C-alpha cells in the first residue's frame, strides 16, 4: 500500500448527482419489509418500557429495586450509560472537525443524530428518578412564588445545565449541518408536500457563497465551543460521584476516566449501527471499511485509557492507606458483585485488545461483536461504580444488596427501544450522510490549486 498520499475519503469518484441519488434514496422509497420488522421489534421494547414508566408514574419509585443504602440503581446507571453513548457524536463533529480529520464527513451526521437520541434517552432517567417526575421544571432556576432557588453549588444542578446545554448545542449543530441538505432535497423532490416541508426546514437556503462564508465560520465557532462542551459533559456527570465522600467515588481520576469511557462506548455504538446502515442503504463507498477501522483505533486508545484507570484506581486505593478505599476495591473484584466487575474488565480491557490485529480491525463480524461487548462492559462499569460503592460503605451495619426489579429492566429495554426507534425513523426521513460535506471531500471536489 502506498502511504505517501492520503487515501480518498470517498471511494471511487462519484459524481455529485450520483451522491445525491444514493444518499436521498431511502427518503424517496417506501420502507422495506425488513425495516418494518425491525421497527416492530423496537416499538415493542419501547411499549414495554412505556408500561414500566407508566407504573413508575402511577405507583412511585417503590416499583424499582432501589432503597437505602443503594438509592441509585439502574436509573443512574442508564443515565450515565446513555450520556456516554451520546458523547461520540459531538466528538466526531466537533473535535475531529477542529483536527481536520476529513474522514469524519461520512459519519458525522449519523453520529450527531445518535448523540441527540442518546441524550434524550439519558435525560429520561434523572427525571424518572425525581420521584415526582412530572415536576422536572423545579430543576431549573427560575423566580418562583416560594422564593426558592436551586443550589448552584450542587453537582446535580451542574448536571441539569450540562445535559440540557449538550442536548441543545448538539441539536443546533445537527440542524445547521442539515440546512444545505434540506435545500438540496427541496430542489430534487417531485412531491409538493415534501417540497413544502423541505423548503420550510431549509429556511430558504440558496447555496450562496455570500452565505457559505458565514456558515463555515459559524460551523467553526460551534465546533470550537462544542469541543470543551463534549469534555465537560461527562466530566460534570462524573462530579456527581467524585464530589461526594463515598469510598470508590471520591477520586480525582473520575473526570478523564469518564470522558475516555464515554468516547469508548459512543464509538462502539456508532460503529455497530453504521455497519447496518452502510449495508442497508448501499453507502459502502461513502462509509468505507477505513472509517470503521479508524473508529476501532479510537476504541483501542480509549479502551486502554479506561483499563489504565481501572489499574490506577487499585493503585491509589492501596497507596492512599485508607482502609475504606482498599476495602471497596477489593470488594469490587472479590465481593458479591465480582461477576459484574470481571464482565466489565474483560469486555472493556481485554477484548478490545484484539483490535491490535489489522485483520480483526477490518473484519465486520469481529468488530461488530467486540463493539457490542464494549457497550456491555461500559454499562457494567457504571453498574459496578454505582452499586458496589453504595452497597458497602463505611458502616457494615448499613450495608445492603441491590436487586433490580422487572420495572428497572423494563425501563432499560424501553430506552433501547426508544433509541433504535428514533434511529429507524431518522434514517427514513433525513439524509444519514451530510450531502454537502461529502461532495466537498470527493476527489476533484476542490479547485486544483488547493
Amino acid at each position, binding site marked *: 500500500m502506498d502511504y505517501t498520499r492520503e487515501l480518498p475519503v470517498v471511494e471511487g469518484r462519484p*459524481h*455529485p*448527482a450520483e451522491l*445525491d441519488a444514493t444518499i436521498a434514496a431511502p427518503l424517496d422509497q417506501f420502507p422495506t419489509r425488513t425495516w418494518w420488522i425491525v421497527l416492530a421489534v423496537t416499538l415493542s421494547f419501547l411499549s414495554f418500557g412505556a408500561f414500566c414508566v407508566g407504573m413508575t*408514574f*402511577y405507583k*412511585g419509585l417503590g416499583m424499582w429495586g432501589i432503597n437505602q443504602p443503594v438509592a441509585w440503581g439502574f436509573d443512574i446507571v442508564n443515565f450515565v450509560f446513555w450520556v456516554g453513548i451520546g458523547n461520540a457524536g459531538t466528538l466526531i463533529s466537533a473535535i475531529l472537525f477542529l483536527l481536520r480529520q476529513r474522514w469524519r464527513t461520512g459519519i458525522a451526521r449519523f453520529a450527531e443524530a445518535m448523540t441527540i437520541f442518546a441524550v434524550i434517552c439519558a435525560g429520561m432517567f434523572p427525571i424518572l428518578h425525581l420521584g*415526582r417526575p412530572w415536576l422536572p421544571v423545579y430543576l431549573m*432556576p427560575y423566580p418562583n412564588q416560594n*422564593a*426558592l*432557588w436551586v*443550589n*448552584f*453549588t*450542587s*453537582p446535580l444542578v*451542574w448536571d441539569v*445545565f*450540562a445535559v440540557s446545554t449538550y442536548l*441543545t*448545542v448538539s441539536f*443546533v449543530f445537527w440542524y*445547521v449541518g442539515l440546512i*444545505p441538505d434540506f*435545500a438540496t432535497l*427541496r*430542489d*430534487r423532490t417531485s412531491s409538493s408536500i415534501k417540497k413544502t416541508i423541505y*423548503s420550510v426546514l*431549509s*429556511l*430558504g*437556503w*440558496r*447555496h*450562496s*457563497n*455570500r*452565505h*457559505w*462564508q*458565514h*456558515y*463555515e*465560520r*459559524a460551523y467553526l*465557532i*460551534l465546533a470550537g*465551543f*462544542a469541543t470543551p*462542551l463534549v469534555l*465537560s459533559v461527562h466530566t460534570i456527570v462524573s462530579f456527581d460521584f467524585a464530589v461526594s465522600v463515598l469510598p470508590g467515588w471520591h477520586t480525582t481520576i473520575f473526570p478523564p476516566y469518564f470522558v475516555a469511557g464515554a468516547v469508548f462506548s459512543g464509538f462502539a455504538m456508532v460503529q455497530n449501527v453504521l455497519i447496518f446502515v452502510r449495508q442497508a442503504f448501499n453507502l459502502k463507498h461513502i462509509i468505507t471499511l477505513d472509517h470503521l477501522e479508524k473508529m476501532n483505533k479510537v476504541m483501542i486508545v480509549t479502551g486502554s485509557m479506561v483499563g489504565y484507570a481501572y489499574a490506577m484506581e487499585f493503585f491509589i486505593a492501596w497507596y492512599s492507606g485508607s482502609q475504606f478505599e482498599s476495602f471497596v476495591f477489593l470488594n469490587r473484584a472479590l465481593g458479591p458483585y465480582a461477576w459484574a466487575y470481571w464482565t466489565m474488565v474483560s469486555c472493556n480491557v481485554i477484548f478490545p485488545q484484539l483490535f491490535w490485529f489489522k485483520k480483526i480491525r477490518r473484519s465486520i463480524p469481529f468488530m461488530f461483536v467486540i463493539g457490542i461487548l464494549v457497550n456491555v462492559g461500559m454499562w457494567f462499569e457504571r453498574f459496578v461504580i454505582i452499586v458496589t460503592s453504595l452497597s458497602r460503605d463505611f458502616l457494615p451495619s448499613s450495608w445492603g444488596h441491590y436487586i433490580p426489579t422487572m420495572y428497572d429492566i423494563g425501563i432499560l429495554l424501553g430506552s433501547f427501544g426508544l433509541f433504535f426507534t428514533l434511529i429507524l425513523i431518522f434514517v427514513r426521513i433525513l439524509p444519514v450522510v451530510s450531502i*454537502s460535506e461529502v*461532495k*466537498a471531500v470527493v476527489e*476533484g471536489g*476542490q*479547485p486544483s490549486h*488547493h
Partner: protein
Amino acid sequence: MNEQHLFSITALFETPDEIIHAAQETQKAGYTHFDVNTPYPVHGMDRSMGLKPTRLGVFSLVFGIIGAVSAVALMTWVTSSDYPLVIGGKPFWSWPAFVPIAFEVTVLLVAVLSVVTMIVLYFKFPNISHPLHDTPYMKRVSSDRFGISIEADDPAFNEAAVREFLKKIGGKDIAAVHYDLEDLNHGQRMFDPKFIGVLALTALLVSGATYIVFNQLLFMEPFSWMMTQSKLKAQRPSELFKDGIGMRPPVEGTVARGFLPYPFKGKPDEAGKNLVNPLLSTRDVLDRGKSKFLTYCSPCHGNFARGDSRLRGQFPNPPTLHSDKVRNWPDGNIYHVITEGQNVMPSYASQISRDDRWAIVRYIRVLQRAQNAKESDLK
C-alpha cells in the same frame, strides 16, 4: 399575468476550477451585485469573489461574555444575597462551584445566539420566496453545478453585455431570472387571513394545552400532590373503628400535662389552709402575673383591682379586692376562686395555667399593698 421584473442573469459552470476563475473575472470586470452558488463551500471562493471577512466571531465573543457574566451574576446574587445556604461550611460566594454552570451557560448562549444571528441578521432567513428559488438554475447548483448570478440592480448591469461576458468566461445555460412583485410580497402580508388563522390556531392550541396541563392534568391521579394518602386523618370518618370516627378519644382517666385534677373542689377554706404559693415574689413572676391579670382579670376587676369594671354595667361589677376580707385571705383562697369561680365569676382553670394563676395571686398581693400603703412603706 403580473408584471415580470428581471432579477439576474445566471450561468452554470462544471468544475470548481472554472467557477473560481469565473468569480475572479466577474470581480475584475467591476460587478459588485453578483453571487456565486455552489452545492458546497469551494475553497478560496471568498478571495475570488472579493468578500470581506465575516464578523460573526465578534458577535460570538459578545454573546460569550454576556453568558459568562450573567451566569456568575445570577449565582452570586442567589447564593450570597437572595437565598444564602450554608453548605459544608463553605463561604456563600464560593466561586469554584460556579465554574461548571458559568461555562455551560456561556457555551449555550454562544452556540444558539451565533446561529440565530447568522440566520436572521446575515442570511435574512427565513425567506423561501427569493427569485432564485424554483429556477432550473437553483436545481442545478443544489446538486452538481456551480453557478454565477449577476443581479440586475448592479450599477454596471446591462443585459446584453452581461450575457456576452458570461459566455466569454465559459458559462453555460445562460438564462434570465425574473420575479413577480406580487409573489415576492405574498409572504409578507401581515393581515393575510391564512396567517391570522395560523396565529389564532397556535394561540388556541398553546393556551388550551397549558390550561389542560397546569389545571387538569397535574391534579389527576397519580399527580395528587400528596393530598390523597391512605393514612388516617383527624376529623375524617374511618371504617377501622366501631364508632366510625377517625380521631380517637383519650383513654378514660387520662391526665393531660399541666392539668392535674384540683383536689379542693367546693372547699375554699381547705384550699386556703393547705395550698401554698409555689412561686417566689420575683420580678419575672410579677411581670407574668401583671400580664395575665391585665388580660384576664382587669376587664371586670379593673386595672388596680378596685372592682371598677370596664364593661359599663353589662356584667355585674365584682367587689373590690382591697377589702379586709380579701386582704386577710391566705393565697390559697384567691387561687381557689380563680380556679373554681365564685358567684357570677366563672372558672378560669382552662384559660390560665396553674403557674400563671399563682403568679396572678402574687400580683394581686402587690396591688393590695400598693393601694393600702402604710407610712413606713414610703420611707
